[in-house]
């Protein structure tokens, strides 16, 4: 399937337009759920870490450092990608599956359009740009939420939280976060599009293809999460 992407598009402008349409649908369409999830991730991880680190031997700002590392390395990228696999992955699979059974894909082929390329390449590029963007937003929202919760509940002062955020910061962790985000984006787009594009039958099969797409996306994301951690950390 991927080999079809590297053929020359029939009309670049149409591909770019479709990419922007997909970016809008994926990005703006997922913004609310990303914000809500990130808000709670940051708040909960802050409270739970503070709860576990009640010791006079551990400085309180360490809570902020742990929140930072947990958020950047795992929660705002892996957990969010699993959520996006459900939201974006099922949406892509359903869209393509519906196009398949309603003969819209056949119509494109008859017109002489490379349907795999026209339908999947813009979605892949949109996912590769949008999902890492959502991950960056998620990291910021989660850390901000942690900051608000820690100061509002008296876990630590704002100065202590900001000091903890900066203390022992390893810039490579952000690079690692982005490598994971791009990898997971690729997995979500390709696996979901594959299951949608090759769906056959009726409404039941589209549902099954969509479910399968989400399940496979989640499993592959978790496997790659482990592989990347093993290789890069």
């Amino acid at each position, binding site marked *: 399937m991927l080999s079809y992407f590297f053929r020359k598009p029939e009309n670049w402008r149409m591909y770019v337009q479709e990419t922007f349409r997909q970016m809008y649908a994926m990005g703006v369409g997922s913004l609310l759920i990303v914000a809500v999830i990130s808000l709670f991730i940051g708040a909960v991880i802050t409270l739970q870490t503070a709860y576990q680190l009640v010791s006079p031997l551990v400085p309180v700002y360490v809570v902020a450092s742990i929140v930072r590392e947990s958020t950047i390395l795992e929660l705002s990228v892996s957990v969010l990608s699993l959520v996006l696999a459900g939201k974006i992955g099922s949406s892509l699979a359903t869209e393509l599956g519906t196009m398949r059974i309603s003969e*819209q894909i056949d*119509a494109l*082929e008859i017109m002489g359009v490379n349907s795999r390329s026209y339908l999947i390449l813009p979605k892949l590029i949109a996912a590769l740009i949008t999902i890492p963007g959502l991950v960056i937003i998620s990291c910021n929202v989660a850390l901000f939420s942690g900051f608000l919760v820690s100061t509002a509940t008296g876990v630590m002062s704002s100065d202590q939280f900001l000091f903890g955020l900066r203390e022992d910061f390893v810039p490579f962790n952000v690079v690692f976060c982005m490598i994971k985000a791009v990898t997971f984006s690729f997995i979500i787009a390709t696996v979901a599009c594959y299951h949608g594009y090759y769906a056959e039958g009726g409404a039941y099969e589209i549902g099954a293809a969509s479910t399968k797409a989400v399940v496979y996306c989640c499993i592959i994301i978790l496997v790659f999460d482990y592989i990347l951690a093993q290789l890069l950390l």
Partner: protein
Amino acid sequence: MIELLDIRKKFGGQEVLKGISAQFQPGQTSLIIGTSGSGKTVTLKCMVGLIEVDSGAVMYDGKNFSAMTNEERIEIRKDIGMLFQGGALFDSMTIEENVMFPLNMFSKMTKAEKQKRVDECLDRVNLSGKNKLHPSEISGGMKKRVGIARAIVMKPKFLFCDEPNSGLDPKTSLVIDKLIREITVDLNMTTVVNTHDMNSVMEIGDHIIFLWQGLKNWEGNKQEVLHSGNKELDDFIFASEFLKKVRENYDKLIH
């Protein structure tokens, strides 16, 4: 002209097309008729390359389409328009965007030229003023008409229609049939229609091919179809008692 040369197709162990040969001439509406499962849709899909034939050839103006590479087929497909059973309109686009899609993808026309061409096509199918509606906002008959407009927007040489009357009331079916007939003659297209609607057969059947169990069982035109003397064709056409009586009375009137 389109020519089928002994095309055969098997799915698993079942041979669906058992060697079909036929010719389809420009300016004529050719109908492929037959019962469900006779191989009509497979024949049509083989003709446009959505299904590959196992053997035999589909020829477009003497060029062997079946033996072409994907890139070569794309050139032929620019001359093909197809109306799908459900319209196959793109849900995310308006009617206008649907019809303009092939122009946007392949033509080098200016925006104004494209708009003019789209308006002409929509006018031709009596859908002027409906440009900004989405497929979900229009009826089944209108969807078919938009499908026709999209199929002819590139002025194709070949038009394929898969069950254009399915799901439509008799009056709307007649409108669609007349439209297909008109554009075939006006644009001198080679039109192939896959149907089991007898009204269409009698209305636009310049050339009729009857498929039965994967074989071409009979070939003729609308004047000949009622008196073919072919048992399978008669069984197909005069399936109901009502139609049998109609034929008897028709014969009495004629003789």
